[in-house]
């Protein structure tokens, strides 16, 4: 049932610290992968779950900058915002991430970009929150959408 690809995302849920780490490789040079994170016109095309559309209000991806955007679709909408604490071109983005309905639930995120050579890049994206309850809620968030997407994909696979 699982389709395997050479770039399947890896998830690490740390047992000792309330963080989640996502690791993924891309067939694109590090400059491109980095730009897809910092250019709002590119970022909005891929951020968030399938089926939601992003509208950017603010996106100033540089050290000391901030962002705010709305995701909507499937009868739902929500605002997300945060600060870009540290942005080092083609290396690292350290930022906060917050769903505005839960203003105390701020995640500290770190995205490291690693040039693998041959035009390939590895991303390590770490989200740290202030409690295991918060981390587990973070992991479980968006699950209604995720479950529906999963079933739709499964339907499509089964029908093919």
């Amino acid at each position, binding site marked *: 049932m699982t389709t395997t690809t050479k770039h399947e*995302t890896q998830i690490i849920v740390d047992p000792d610290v309330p963080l989640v780490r*996502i690791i993924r490789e891309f067939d694109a040079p590090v400059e491109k*992968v980095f*730009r897809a994170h910092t250019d709002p016109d*590119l970022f909005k095309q*891929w*951020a968030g779950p399938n089926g939601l559309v992003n509208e950017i209000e603010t996106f100033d991806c540089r050290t000391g900058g901030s962002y705010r955007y709305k995701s909507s679709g499937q009868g739902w909408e929500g605002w997300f915002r945060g600060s870009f604490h540290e942005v080092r071109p083609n290396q690292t983005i350290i930022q906060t991430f917050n769903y505005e309905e839960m203003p105390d639930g701020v995640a500290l995120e770190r995205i490291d970009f690693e040039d693998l050579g041959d035009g390939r890049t590895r991303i390590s994206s770490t989200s740290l929150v202030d409690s295991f309850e918060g981390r587990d809620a973070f992991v479980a968030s968006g699950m209604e959408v*995720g*479950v529906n997407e999963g079933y739709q994909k499964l339907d499509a696979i089964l029908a093919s």
Partner: protein
Amino acid sequence: VHLEAEVFDLMTKWIERYRRLAEERYRRLDAVLETMADDEQEDDK
């Protein structure tokens, strides 16, 4: 012990769903990367 096993099982499912969401997001990023110009110019279509 039974309850702990249930919680662990639920958490494992959540983690797999979370991973799948991340994978879907990054497949869209794959697609965006393919649309970006191969040269170093801005894609200003």
